[in-house]
């Protein structure tokens, strides 16, 4: 049983949970014209802005990290865990565009026409781009609030905050941590205000969820964090819990990149799965904290989903949304609303839907216009993100009985692999040949459209196309229940640059509505889910040069913990002119002489593997490439590497190390693991040195085990800044039952 022992929130309504909660109950709306940047030419300027946030700090400072730091510190302090820190504590941070507000200023220098900016100023701006990878806010939180034993940055657009709690809960269930600080943070910026304006999704009079006159959402900003731990651990240290986290479910709609599936069928499946996970039925639910954005499409869809799930109980169960008060805080929404739902349960007060006056008959629910005191046994909170990423959390009272079916960690196998490099597309056992196959140039020159149904793939940007091809090949047919995990260090750099250039040159009225959804870092994962029709949990993770290893680790955890039976894990490096410029400035020009056969190091490419629970792979007769024997992940403590099982039969026989990018740090690490003398294959010379390299290496590892009977085990390692990963795959043999 998992309990929440600390809450933290920063919103436009208040600088902590208490202030936000008091003003939520009063029905206050915190909407005013944006002041963070000049916005005279934006159609709708009304936002929910957090006051009094400082503007600068360390190199990687961002408004997003500052908001996150405040809320995370409050949650950690409330939990009482921050003092002596005797436990293994994890950190999970959800986000969307991370330091975009700051990156926009940097981009405006980089995008200035040649000759209008001093070259040194321009180079400095290019260097600054590296200060804001998607994982930067997480790194800052880890640095200032740590140490943590395990750290994760994730994004699933507007369900990121809820998914941070799903990941935190699975860490507790898998025994990887003793407590976990999880939540999300998101700050207002030009890109999102222009993008939601372009989508016509903003209500000029401020969001009015479920109201007949509603015209859209109002963008907000903020952060929410909670501390999760096992009930027994909290009890043992004499800490009273705020409430329990009883159930959760993350699923995908596989419908459309911006529009919800109108019948509400997909969200209702997620709600039912979360209730089943909690061992509850609709009769046990006394409050629903809705996604309730106030857009014309969301609210009736969500009402239909709730009507289906609650059945006859729908007239009894109060439903409310606070997005008409502190706005839609995007990535942070699910986390902030979790703190609201937890507070509602612990105080026995149902918060209202601020801004709702005339309820839409299309949204026939038990609406709450004024705060009501009433006991809440259990409550459900929903979050739906771009790309159709639905996550539902179920919370109960601190003294709730544990009715969930017990779970065990499941054995995980690799059922497929695929790699794309400039040399071609490799799948099945052929993936093992990637390190042998030479290629010309650094970009993929063959026609990707030949691999895709181009009518259905027309909205997919290049990264999404590479990811969809790799995932489709790795998964094979009949994979509709699979989830998708994308590893992505920087997000859509060129896409964002193009969007910003248009914004600068043509103004926000001419911002492209079709291009905007592609700027959300989880967008390629959503596109893969939609294109391949996959309904499992769908999200992106980021961890600089080890984003590929991080994605494999995340995918493994989801399958091992039973969140999904199958998952496609993919990392992609697309040819990017901006990233090329950044690397030229930071690392100097690529000195290798291509005329003498030396190859450029940064290459376009993608690597994917399909993972499945062993029992599922056997029952479905899926090809089994390898067993996932060990997945280790650490933060600033490399001693974890000593936990790797030594190579079978000594170093010289049957054991191989396959790594994406070679480096001195790897050597030391491998010696510590007892794998220092094993044969080593490095993929970078052929597949490129980049953020996807780890995923390519792990795909090659699976292909090697499947195709070479002399190899018993493969170890893949990757390290970047503070974090490291060691993933050990072994020859598959059915276990005697």
């Amino acid at each position, binding site marked *: 049983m998992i309990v929440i022992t600390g809450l933290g929130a920063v919103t436009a309504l208040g600088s902590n949970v208490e202030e936000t909660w008091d003003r939520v109950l009063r029905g206050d709306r915190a909407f005013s014209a944006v002041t963070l940047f000049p916005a005279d030419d934006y159609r709708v300027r009304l936002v929910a802005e957090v006051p009094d946030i400082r503007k600068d700090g360390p190199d990687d400072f961002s408004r997003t990290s500052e908001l996150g730091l405040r809320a995370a510190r409050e949650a950690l302090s409330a939990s009482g865990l921050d003092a002596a820190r005797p436990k293994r504590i994890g950190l999970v941070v959800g986000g969307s565009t991370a330091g975009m507000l700051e990156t926009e200023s940097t981009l405006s220098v980089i995008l200035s026409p040649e000759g209008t900016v001093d070259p040194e100023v321009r180079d400095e701006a290019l260097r600054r781009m590296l200060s804001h990878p998607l994982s930067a806010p997480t790194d800052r939180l880890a640095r200032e609030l740590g140490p943590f034993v395990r750290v994760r940055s994730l994004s699933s657009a507007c369900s990121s905050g809820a998914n941070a709690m799903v990941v935190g809960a699975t860490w507790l269930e898998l025994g990887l941590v003793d407590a976990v600080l999880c939540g999300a943070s998101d700050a207002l910026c030009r890109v999102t205000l222009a993008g939601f304006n*372009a*989508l*016509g999704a903003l209500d000029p009079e401020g969001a009015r969820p479920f109201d007949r006159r509603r015209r859209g959402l109002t963008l907000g900003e903020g952060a929410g964090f909670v501390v999760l731990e096992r009930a027994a651990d909290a009890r043992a240290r004499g800490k009273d819990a705020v409430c329990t986290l009883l159930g959760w479910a993350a699923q995908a709609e596989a419908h*459309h*990149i*911006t*529009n919800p599936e109108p019948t509400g069928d997909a969200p209702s499946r997620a709600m039912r799965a979360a209730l089943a996970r909690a061992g509850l039925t609709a009769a046990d639910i006394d409050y629903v904290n809705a996604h309730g954005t106030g857009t014309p499409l969301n609210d009736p869809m969500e009402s239909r989903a709730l009507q289906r799930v609650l059945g006859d109980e729908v007239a009894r169960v109060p439903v409310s949304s606070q997005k008409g008060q502190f706005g839609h805080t995007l990535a942070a929404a699910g986390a902030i609303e979790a703190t609201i739902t937890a507070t509602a349960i612990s105080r026995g007060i149902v918060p209202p839907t601020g801004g709702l006056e005339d309820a839409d008959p299309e949204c026939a629910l038990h609406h709450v216009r004024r705060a009501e005191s009433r006991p809440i046994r259990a409550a459900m909170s929903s979050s739906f993100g771009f790309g159709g990423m639905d996550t539902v959390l179920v919370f109960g009272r601190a003294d709730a009985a544990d009715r969930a079916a017990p779970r065990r960690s499941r054995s995980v196998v690799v059922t497929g692999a695929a790699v794309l490099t400039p040399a071609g597309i490799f799948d099945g056992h052929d993936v093992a040949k990637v390190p042998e196959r030479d290629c010309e140039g650094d970009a993929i020159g063959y026609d990707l*459209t030949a691999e895709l149904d*181009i*009518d259905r793939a*027309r*909205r997919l940007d290049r990264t999404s196309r590479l990811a969809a091809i790799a995932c489709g090949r790795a998964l094979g047919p009949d994979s509709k229940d699979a989830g998708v995990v994308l590893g992505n260090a920087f997000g859509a750099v060129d896409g964002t640059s193009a969007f910003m250039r248009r914004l600068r040159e*043509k103004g926000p*009225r*001419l*911002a*492209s*509505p*079709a291009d905007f*959804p592609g700027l959300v870092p989880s967008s390629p994962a959503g596109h893969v889910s939609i294109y391949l029709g996959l309904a499992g949990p769908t999200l992106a993770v980021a961890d600089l040069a080890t984003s590929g290893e991080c994605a494999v680790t995340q995918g493994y955890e989801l399958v091992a913990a039973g969140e999904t039976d199958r998952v496609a894990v993919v990392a992609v490096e697309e040819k990017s002119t901006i990233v090329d410029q950044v690397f030229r400035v930071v690392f100097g020009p690529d000195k290798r002489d291509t005329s003498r056969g030396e190859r450029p190091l940064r290459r376009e490419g993608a690597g994917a593997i399909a993972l499945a629970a062993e029992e599922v792979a056997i029952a479905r007769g899926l090809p089994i490439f390898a067993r996932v024997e060990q997945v280790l992940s650490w933060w600033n403590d490399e001693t974890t590497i000593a936990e790797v099982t030594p190579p079978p039969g000594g170093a010289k026989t049957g054991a191989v190390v396959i790594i994406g990018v070679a480096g001195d740090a790897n050597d030391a690490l491998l010696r510590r693991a007892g794998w220092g003398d094993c044969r080593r294959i490095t993929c970078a010379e052929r597949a490129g040195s980049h953020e996807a390299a780890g995923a390519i290496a792990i795909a090659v590892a699976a292909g090697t085990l499947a195709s070479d009977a002399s190899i018993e085990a493969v170890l893949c390692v990757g390290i970047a800044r503070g974090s490291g990963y060691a993933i050990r795959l072994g020859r598959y043999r059915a276990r005697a039952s």
Partner: protein
Amino acid sequence: MQRSDLKSEIKQLLVAELNLTGRDPSSIEDDAPLFGTGGLGLDSLDALQIAMLVEEKFGIRVPEGDEARPIFRSVSSLSDFIGAARDAKAGGAPTG
């Protein structure tokens, strides 16, 4: 500009800007429905993109919401709307 030229310009714009790769602009029927099945199969996100493109390329603002529906029915209806707005502009009448 002739309405027939305008129609072919619109068709080329749709194919290029909505990534309808592999479709020959001249194969799009003037009166075929742009949205839903039985036509180009476009959706509401495409409608927003078209509205933005019409404003960018022709300097004409497309009304929002229900008013826009008949305008987006087909290439013909789009061409009629753009043509009429241009004529009104040429005649000095406000185009909104």
